[in-house]
């Protein structure tokens, strides 16, 4: 034997799990909702998604290059951000606005804070809020399902179930809500597809069910106590998209089990408060972003208890 050996400290084995494999699983989990949005809103939905994904990936590439950091587009996290951003937009959105959203998400929210793992709020949600504040009309122009809007002229505008519920004009139809036959953001409407994606993420152990269960459970219990229809509140708006895909974002949610419980319950309370008592019909994005900001503090309070800490000896004769 005369070859040189690698010498390193243990372990000498790796699980093979990589960031890009995790992100690929998230993308796969998003596909049912993506397909649903294309079926319900037509081919324009796909175009919006392509625009935001392209915008996110290009922004990531260029900003990393300008900041003289290594190229990270292959970790696929920018693709996930792009899809999630498109899911938070109405299908009729101006494509330039969609592209601007992608730039805001990646450059301002993600890369300026140091890139993957360093952003303190969810990039897609922060970008959505930037767009809602900058282009309020475009961000609240909802198309009717199955009208196949392609150009702006085709749009038949209508109100979302949640805004109808605020003024008391929504007549409940759980079937339509469950399968997404309703106006709303592209990715949030089809509950069935989102739940399917969530189950995939759970099976692949990409997420733990802690945050979604605590978030959705809190909304269920609170709306029930306050005399509203809990099933309507779970199926409408962006709750399922938010609870399954946005609140579980690794970077902006707590690391520990206890922290995740606090985070999920906090998101639930804020969402119900905004929906029922706030000026806005929907509050998922704001609730998650607010809880994102609290994560470092939640983390300080929820450090894990080491095995054997505070234990007592036995067997003293």
């Amino acid at each position, binding site marked *: 034997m005369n070859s040189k050996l*690698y010498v390193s*400290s243990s372990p000498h084995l*790796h699980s093979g799990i*990589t960031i890009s494999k995790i992100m690929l699983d998230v993308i796969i989990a998003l596909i049912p909702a993506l397909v649903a949005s294309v079926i319900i809103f037509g081919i324009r939905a796909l175009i919006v998604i392509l625009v935001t994904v392209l915008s996110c990936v290009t922004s990531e590439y260029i900003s990393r290059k300008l900041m003289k950091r290594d190229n990270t587009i292959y970790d696929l996290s920018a693709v996930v951000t792009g899809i999630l951003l498109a899911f938070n937009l109405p299908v009729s959105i101006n494509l330039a606005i969609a592209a601007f959203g992608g730039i805001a998400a990646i450059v301002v929210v993600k890369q300026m804070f140091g890139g993957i793992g360093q952003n303190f709020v969810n990039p897609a949600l922060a970008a959505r809020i930037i767009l809602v504040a900058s282009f309020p009309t475009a961000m609240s122009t909802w198309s009717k399902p199955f009208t196949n809007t392609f150009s702006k002229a085709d749009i038949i505008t209508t109100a979302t179930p949640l805004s109808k519920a605020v003024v008391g004009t929504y007549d409940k139809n759980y079937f339509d809500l469950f399968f997404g036959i309703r106006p709303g953001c592209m990715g949030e409407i089809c509950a069935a597809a989102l739940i399917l994606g969530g189950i995939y993420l759970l099976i692949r152990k990409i997420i*733990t*069910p802690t945050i979604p269960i605590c978030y959705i459970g809190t909304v269920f219990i609170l709306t029930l106590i306050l005399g509203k229809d809990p099933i309507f509140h779970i199926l409408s708006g962006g709750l399922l998209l938010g609870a399954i895909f946005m609140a579980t974002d*690794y970077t902006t949610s707590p690391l520990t089990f206890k922290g995740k419980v606090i985070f999920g319950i906090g998101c639930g309370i804020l969402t119900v408060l905004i929906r029922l008592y706030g000026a806005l019909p929907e509050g998922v994005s704001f609730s998650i972003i607010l809880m994102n900001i609290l994560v470092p503090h939640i983390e300080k309070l929820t450090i894990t208890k*080491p*095995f054997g800490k505070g234990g007592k000896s*036995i067997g003293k004769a």
Partner: protein
Amino acid sequence: MFLTGYFKSSSLPFRTRGGVKVPHEKSTALEKTVVMPAPKQVVITTLQHIGAPCVPVVKTGDSVKVGDIIADSDKFISAPIHSSVSGTISKISKIIMPDGAKVDAIYIESDGLGELSTKIKPPKLETKENLIKIARESGLVGLGGAGFPTHVKLNVSDDKKIDTLIINAAECEPYITSDNRAAIEDTSDVISGIITVKKMLKIDTAIIAVEDNKPHAIKMLQDAINTQKENINLVKLKSRYPQGAEKVLIKAASNRVVPIGKLPLDIGCIVMNIASIAFLSKYIRNGIPLIEKRITIAGSAIKKPQNVTALIGTPISEIIKFCGGYKTEPKKILMGGPMMGIALLDDTFPILKNTNAILALDENDAILPETQDCIRCGKCIESCPMGLMPTLIESNVNSKDLKELQKLDTMNCMECGCCSFICPSGRPLVQAIRLGKKLLKDNNISKP
């Protein structure tokens, strides 16, 4: 999963925290151990255990027989070292241990006769004191890998009541099958060893803990237990790394938790490796001290992976030659398993008392993924059997924040490596924690 650790399981094996699923790679499990003939030269280091190194009691030119003491120490945590061949001491010089320590090594040229020392005779065993003396004289140290002198472990002060003897046959490291072979080939020695220790230390219950990926060993042990009336139980552990780590094993087998900074005997347990207990029983029978060891030779660069019984001090290169040599160019040679083993600089180092495997890995297996930024997925925290937060410890090691390191109970890390194994960003987490432990030790704030 959800609520893990909040529901306490009440059936065997008891629930343990964290851990990771590792590949088994135990292709050598079913093959009989092959005895390797004595090499021309053995190199016996004066540090074969955890504790104080021994001092050579022989000098160059002396002739020794198999079983003669060649190094000993008057320190408590130490164990005598015996010659594994008959022959002549050719030199005594410094050698660098795999962990970097520099100690004396005794080089013995074998005369090829393998003559036993005249001092060898079966020991007299009547009391607990006898047993402790015997354990020391046999040179036995923990054969599972840690190498803690057995006589120290058995020397329990009378105010501590020990009610459970746990035999560690978990063997949770990938590749290694030497304990599995010990369970299969030395079954009766294992059982008689357990009975002896139980009787001498007045222990009520013995538990043999085996991971459930060793059905053959489990069957052999269970059959042997069934033939006698002693209070010995077999616990099938889940195949999940690190089930064989002492504190994890105690929890899984007896549902007891060793408090931080305490020892198993503080909660009424003694844990012994299965190969150690089998050896002890053999020594009581024939009086031959610890001079040979069953070792798993495996890995992608080995031509004929198998278990080999080799004399202590045999150079690794000789053992690999005995196993058909290298199949491809080795790129990493490990003493021990891939999770906690030590990477060697070359293959000339001799095997030690506590060596349980030699692995030679090819280029493909030797390379680890490149490090990327932490994505805060929390997998390191989920996988930590000790309930620590590796990613936070790592960032505090990088910023040298001693106060925070202490708050995160850095010293409680047992360096099993689950965090580094699972990290999707390929971060060297346990490696950073080792630095953190050293930082705390250097600043004298390592006590919990």
